[in-house]
């Protein structure tokens, strides 16, 4: 192979390094107007009265749009439970309510941003505050105030798994571990705050140029809210400054389209531009879900886990976003990559007045893994067994049944991945089984108050959409030339969110067509000229696009040989179908592909200040086939660093609907001096039988095991289990003090 497996230079490197690349905020169009959004600013209220006349009367204000101006005032990736604009005047029931502080109430379009900002202050809104739901457990209780009264309950999704008989199995178990895990929200903190332009293009389409993750889904949601046929809406992504799941739901898309469309109807054809500040970004888009996971697991003295019972409660925040899908993952992953004969899971998505929970790298996997790996590590400890040893006794193997009663797709490598990670990290195997490295291998700290420890965790994560969600990816390849192929154009919608998708697309097209990569020209991320690719999420794009590109290349080559000029191949790849969880038993075929990962972490804990410092992280990740090894390494290191922030530092503070961490000076993410001293990426390549050139997805996997591995390492260092994080110095120090007092 000449292109797949090579660390080709990124196709977007030059533009991004020189600053030539335009992100949505950088783009300006002639005669553009500026938009500002009025946010609710309070967590729960109904809007009694809204008067925008004073704002509209201001000189320089082109228009103010409110709920009454939205043709179909609702949207949502999974279910349309969110008003585009909250307030009176639309047909949507209860759309007059705001349910989190970032709910959008009105948009002002003006000659300048400053005028738009002043006009916001002239909009009179009379709120009647409603009780604020801040806790998912309270919110799911009988009699709680309802966020969406039309739904009758704050529980908006529920799954259950019933496999075997946990009660009976617990009775046989030699050891039991019971814990309650609480996981915190996390902010995506991408470099580029939301921004974009809305305008009517040459062909009369309502067009939005933004940064998102799925052009065609944005297009559909815009069309739905505007009551327009899909063809009359166009979505274009220019460069995207990071996403991590945070751009999977709408932010500025619909309001930009609405403003451009309504102005056009009034005979004003002017592009409309918006740029969110960092504060608006942090308040305005969703967060990683908070979870409470109660787990009770039992094992035999030989170390075989015989039963697992879990209650999984997800704080969905004010609207559904992708919560139900995220919950599906947690439902599956809260019992880890293990074969457990008896499993009982009850999982709930619950509305509260928090900023909505939504997609974020790992998509429910990290929370599930934190609970599962915590349980596994505690069981090992109780049994006096090594953490690797117990995992290898329980990991899923080819043909073994998941908690949902079906086997994993072929190509199960978790056992080999755990072994490889352990060996690289100094574990030794002898006749008596696996043994973790001696303490001295961790090196000795410089001071007495510093303690070191090591921990391990592993995980599995689906590639692609799960549980019966429609899944496909379409590629178009055009071959131009006469005798020889002069140029191959690949038309593809894939969002390049910084992960390197476009580079990998070009590599795979070059490979499939056996052409030099310089002959591939990409036409990307524009609904007008590409077909639906699905989102850049779920670690799916390389896998899905690769298969689509192979098909398109084959078809284009056939036509080329049949002398068609240009030879155009279109191919829609559909993976093996998946099925939803059975409502009673959870039985399902959840996914068509997985990636497997294991990590060890060594830490140093300062027992006087509570600081946890990450020393070495060793990540073994089975990526099936590293299409571009350098990009794979970048994803591993990036995921580890992002997870390090989640585990140790990122402390999103939201109380009574007030967010104290609306900026990057109060919400801290790791700096270059906070990240682990060393991250070793061990790239394993056990091919996925249905992956393109054997590739599996890998963008999320290395994120999952880090936090539970850190928790295990801290336990090893100072003897305390943390079932809640982030492990801020204050939290760690408080626990250390508590453990000292008898």
């Amino acid at each position, binding site marked *: 192979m000449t292109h797949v497996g090579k660390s080709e230079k990124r196709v977007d490197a030059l533009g991004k390094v020189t600053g030539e690349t335009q992100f949505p905020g950088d783009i300006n169009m002639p005669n553009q107007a500026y938009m500002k959004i009025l946010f609710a600013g309070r967590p729960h209220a109904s809007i009694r009265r809204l008067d925008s006349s004073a704002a509209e009367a201001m000189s320089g204000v082109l228009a103010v749009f409110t709920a009454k101006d939205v043709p179909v005032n609702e949207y949502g990736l999974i279910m349309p439970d969110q008003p585009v604009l909250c307030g009176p005047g639309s047909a949507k029931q209860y759309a007059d309510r705001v349910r989190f502080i970032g709910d959008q109430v009105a948009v002002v379009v003006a000659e300048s941003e400053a005028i738009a900002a002043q006009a916001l202050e002239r909009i009179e809104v009379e709120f009647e505050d409603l009780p604020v739901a801040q806790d998912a457990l309270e919110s799911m209780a009988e009699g709680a105030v309802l966020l969406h009264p039309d739904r009758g309950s704050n529980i908006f999704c529920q799954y259950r798994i019933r496999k075997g008989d946990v009660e009976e199995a617990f009775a046989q178990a030699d050891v039991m571990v019971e814990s309650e895990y609480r996981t915190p929200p996390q902010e995506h903190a991408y470099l580029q705050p939301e921004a974009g332009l809305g305008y009517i293009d040459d062909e009369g389409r309502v067009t939005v140029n933004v940064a998102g993750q799925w052009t065609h889904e944005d297009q559909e949601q815009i069309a739905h809210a505007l009551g327009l046929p899909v063809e009359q809406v166009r979505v274009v992504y220019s460069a995207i400054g990071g996403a991590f799941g945070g751009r999977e739901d709408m932010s500025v898309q619909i309001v930009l389209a609405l403003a451009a469309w309504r102005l056009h109807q009034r005979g004003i054809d002017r592009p409309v531009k918006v740029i969110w500040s960092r504060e608006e970004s942090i308040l305005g888009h969703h967060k990683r879900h908070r979870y409470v996971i109660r787990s009770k697991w039992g094992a035999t003295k030989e170390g075989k886990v015989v039963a697992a019972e879990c209650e999984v409660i997800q704080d969905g925040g004010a609207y559904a976003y992708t919560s139900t899908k995220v919950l599906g993952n947690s439902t599956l992953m809260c019992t880890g990559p293990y074969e457990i004969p008896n499993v009982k899971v009850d999982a709930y998505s619950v509305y509260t007045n928090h900023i909505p929970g939504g997609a974020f790298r790992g998509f429910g996997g990290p929370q599930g893994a934190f609970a599962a790996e915590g349980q596994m590590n505690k069981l090992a400890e109780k049994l006096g067994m090594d953490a690797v040893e117990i995992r290898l006794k329980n990991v899923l193997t080819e043909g073994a049944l998941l908690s949902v009663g079906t086997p994993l797709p072929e190509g199960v490598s978790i056992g080999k991945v755990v072994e490889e990670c352990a060996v690289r990290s100094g574990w030794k195997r002898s006749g008596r089984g696996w043994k973790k490295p001696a303490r001295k291998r961790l090196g000795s700290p410089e001071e007495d108050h510093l303690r070191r420890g090591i921990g391990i965790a592993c995980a599995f994560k689906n590639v692609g959409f799960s549980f019966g969600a429609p899944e496909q990816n379409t590629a178009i390849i055009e071959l131009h030339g006469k005798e020889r192929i002069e140029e191959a154009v690949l038309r593809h919608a894939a969002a390049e969110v910084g992960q390197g998708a476009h580079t990998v697309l070009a590599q795979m097209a070059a490979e499939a067509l056996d052409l030099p990569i310089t002959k591939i020209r990409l036409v990307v991320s524009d609904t007008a000229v590409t077909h639906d690719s699905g989102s850049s999420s779920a670690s799916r794009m390389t896998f899905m696009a690769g298969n689509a590109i192979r098909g398109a290349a084959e078809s284009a080559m056939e036509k080329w040989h049949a002398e068609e000029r240009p030879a155009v191949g279109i191919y829609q790849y559909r993976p093996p179908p998946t099925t939803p969880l059975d409502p009673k038993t959870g039985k399902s075929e959840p996914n068509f592909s997985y990636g497997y990962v294991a990590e060890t972490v060594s830490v140093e804990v300062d027992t006087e200040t509570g600081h946890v410092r990450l020393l070495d992280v060793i990540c073994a990740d089975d990526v099936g086939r590293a299409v571009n090894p350098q990009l794979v390494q970048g994803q591993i290191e990036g995921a580890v660093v992002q997870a390090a922030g989640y585990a140790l530092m990122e402390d999103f503070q939201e109380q009574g609907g007030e967010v104290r961490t609306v900026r990057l000076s109060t919400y801290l993410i790791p*700096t270059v001096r906070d990240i682990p001293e060393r991250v070793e990426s061990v790239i394993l390549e056990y091919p996925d039988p249905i992956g393109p050139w054997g590739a599996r997805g890998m963008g999320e996997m290395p994120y999952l095991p880090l936090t539970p591995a850190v928790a295990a390492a801290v336990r090893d260092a100072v003897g305390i289990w943390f079932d809640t994080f982030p492990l801020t110095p*204050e939290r760690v*120090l408080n626990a250390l003090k508590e453990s000292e007092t008898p």
Partner: protein
Amino acid sequence: MKSVRPGLPEFDYIRAETIEQVSELLKNGKPSRLLMGGTDVFVQMRDGAFSPAILVDVKHLPGMQSIQKTGNKGLRIGAAVDLNTLAGHPEVVKSFPLLAEAAQSVASYQLRSRATMGGNLCNASPAADTAPAALVLEAILVAQGSNGERRIPAHDFFTGPGQNALQDGEILTSIEIPPPPKGPVGRYLKLGRNAEGDLAIVGVAVLGYADKTSESGFRFRMALSSVAPTPIRVPTAEDILESRTIGDETISAAAQAARKTAKPIDDVRASAGYRSAMVEVHARRALHAVWTALGREA
């Protein structure tokens, strides 16, 4: 020059060339604000803390950006010397490494290329990282106003959160560091939530030197940031260190005294309780570091 930036109010920018010009501008009645690196000014303007009609850039006034030796090993630091220059200046590194360390602890390299020591002190944040160093080095803040020069000792300069002892029309022009005592050793320990860029949860500066006239044979000066309404000296700890034989016990007692002196608050960065505990830990660590180095030299 009118400047309209999203998020920033409109203002005029004037680059002052002489002190007289500054005095004129400050007197003319329009709300104005002095500007050096702008790393506090612009953030506060964006937050709506104030919206001056005029920003008077004073960093190009004569002498504002130079560092000069004064007689007998003291230094005169122009108020507008940026923190990277300060931290890397050979005389500072040689004679006042504590000051270099404090300057280096502010934010990130990029920010330090604009941020100035004068701005840091005038902004008078309780968390100002160069303030504890200025306190223990017993710096003199030199101000110029229409009535001429005024020399303000650092310990009189900080009057409240965001408030300093400058009078209307006065500007800070330099910071004079008096000649150091003989054989001084200094440390500034800063604790932030991250390793780079965060404001201090606690900052502790310690300067120690041998002095036969004290009972312990040594004198120590200690100052704290971020744990009181202003940066503060800790005389109780200093007294302990001068009157008792220095060793682990005395150091611990002094660290406890520092904890007692501190009056921290809860905020988004840390609770008051954690800050208190950290004052003690970091005071002890800074004292140990200084004491160890003094012992080595003796």
